[in-house]
């Protein structure tokens, strides 16, 4: 395992690339802040350092790895992983490489599922879990919309309660003619959906129900009240199976409450993790 550190242009946010899986999978880790370790697992649309993470960094030493394949110039590394079991082992190796024995895990959507799987596989590694609209279950009457099959405009309307909010504008930069940055953003997003989709296609239930009982960490579930992709009713699946879990719904938000209302969600998460 090798670690390569450099300071990014974003002030105070550190960036390093860690190699795991016999150096076949390179993972970029963004980090910032002081305090107890907190690992943030991002959702299906890629990792960007956002105001929510800034808020958390005030109380925690936040480490945010990019899911395999989404690290710049390491796009094909994801082909070295065959399934969820490989991914979970990869993250165990990453924590080892970062020198983290245990930490608070925070995850959004796909990342929430990864955090929960990791906590089930290695119950002593997760001190506390904060899962924001996590995947992992499937209910026939409440089918999760496959966002990978939506046109960009429709995707934007499905993720955000308010598709015109600042976070939505940042995630979907307006595409001008010959605008290479908008094209690059679209490429990043599509590839992030493809690489994370590798572990959940075609139904994001990969057996968490058989493993979740192993989780020991107290868990907070955060759900946007108007989540159109993964309806809030999915919180019941987690609460019913975890020994210590509670739900907090956030009004006026969709599937990315931490992006639509970063201060509110960060406060709830910080309070819970600080208990």
């Amino acid at each position, binding site marked *: 395992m090798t670690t390569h550190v450099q300071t990014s242009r974003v002030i105070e946010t550190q960036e390093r690339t860690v190699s795991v899986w016999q150096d076949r999978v390179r993972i970029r880790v963004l980090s910032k802040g002081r305090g107890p370790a907190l690992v943030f697992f991002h959702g299906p649309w890629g990792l960007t350092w956002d105001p929510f993470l800034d808020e958390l960094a005030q109380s925690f030493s936040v480490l945010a790895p990019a899911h395999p394949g989404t690290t710049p110039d390491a796009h094909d590394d994801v*082909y070295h992983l*065959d399934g969820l079991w490989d991914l979970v082992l990869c993250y165990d190796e990453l924590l080892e490489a970062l020198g983290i024995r245990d930490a608070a895990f925070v995850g959004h959507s796909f990342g929430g599922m990864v955090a929960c799987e990791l906590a089930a596989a290695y119950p002593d590694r997760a001190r506390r879990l904060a899962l924001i609209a996590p995947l992992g279950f499937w209910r026939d009457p409440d089918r999760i919309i496959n966002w*990978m099959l939506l046109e960009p405009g429709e995707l934007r309307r499905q993720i955000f309660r308010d598709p015109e909010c600042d976070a939505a504008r940042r995630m979907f930069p307006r595409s001008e003619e010959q605008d290479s940055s908008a*094209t690059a953003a679209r490429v990043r997003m599509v*590839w*992030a*959906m*493809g690489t994370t*989709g590798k572990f959940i*296609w075609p139904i994001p239930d990969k057996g968490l129900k058989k493993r979740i009982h192993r989780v020991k960490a107290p868990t907070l579930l955060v759900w946007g009240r108007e989540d159109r992709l993964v309806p809030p009713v999915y919180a019941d699946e987690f609460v019913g199976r975890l020994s210590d879990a509670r739900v907090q719904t956030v009004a006026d938000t969709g599937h990315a409450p931490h992006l639509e209302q970063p201060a509110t969600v960060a406060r709830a998460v910080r309070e819970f993790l600080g208990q």
Partner: protein
Amino acid sequence: MKISAFHLMPYRELPADFERRYESVWVTPPWWELADARRVGQYYNWTLDELLYAAKCGFDGVCTNEHHQNAYGFMPSPNLMGSVLARATNGTNVAIVQMGATLPTSNPPLRVAEEYAMLDCISGGRLVAGLPLGSPMDVNLCYGITPMEHRERYREAFALTLKAWQAREIFSWNGRYFQLATVNLWPRPIQEPHPPVWVPGSGSISTFDFAVEHDVCYCFLSYSGARSAKTMMDGYWRVVAEKGRDLNPYRAGFLQLVVVAESDARAEEKFARHVEYFYHKCLHVPGVWFSPPGNQDYRSLVATMANPVRRAENPKNLRYRDFVEKGYVIAGSPATVRDRLKEEVINGLHVGNLMVLLQIGSMPHELAMENIELFGREVLPGLRDFWDDGRWVNHWWPERLRQSAAPVAAGLAAGGA
């Protein structure tokens, strides 16, 4: 020149407002609202009759293909159709061109190797083995294969199939996607070392490379005609040359929509609405479904996003005369059709294995039969000798059928047409 009749088996009676009322012709069209099983039974039989009639009318081959959950073309099992065709054409020189069974969705893919071997045995060695990747709608959306694994699974299944046909010894296959401890195929195909392999594609560069590296026939299945295929096919021939292969026109197949009538004007009268039905309804699919995230590798994704220049025009904005003018459909009198096929497709794209789609969209059975008959009688004879100057051998055609100038159709089974 080898000329085969291609068939999709579409639903021929979708409502006039289909494309406005429904999300897609593929994956989600509601069966109970739109279709009728007895009617569909009639379609399957018409489809078989139309292909057998083509065999009788002098075509060199008959083509079927696999698609799922759609009203565009629904032969979920092309080999069921192919087996009827193989039996009914025994005693003729017509090839059974399966375009074909989709490898990544057959588990284990050995099933395709077995069924193709069966077809080759039943037909007495007349099989052309199409080994398609399958469309993302079929493979990813309907059959649940992860987009990112689609091509990897295909490549592994392709290698397994070729080995299973040829291996002299029993072997084990310890693959990434398929594990089989004892592979010992029964039956094996008649053709040795194996039936000719065609790989259909829709213009993906990685499929060009794959086809040339494996020395198979690349078939461009396009609905936009030869003119818009020109850049694509030039690219293919460039890859062929770069990789040191000869420019044998039989390395390429091309699918062309064709309607023939007594005159150009008469063709419009007879076929215009069926052509429009095809382009407006049968191709009604949301754009992103053709390429779900992960289906293209990173390099191709970057290339596609950076060059939206070649984005195809929306066929819903075009009418019959546009389709004909642009060459999406080659239409008109036998002379018009023959000349355009020669100039634009056969010569223009350097194609030795031509496939023609003659039943299009809502075209009723009787009209399809007229189209097939007229093409066979008035167009086909004028094209057959193309490339027949002794320079090229069609290595991608069943060996015993290569020399036949005019297929012997007299032996067609009575139930055939």
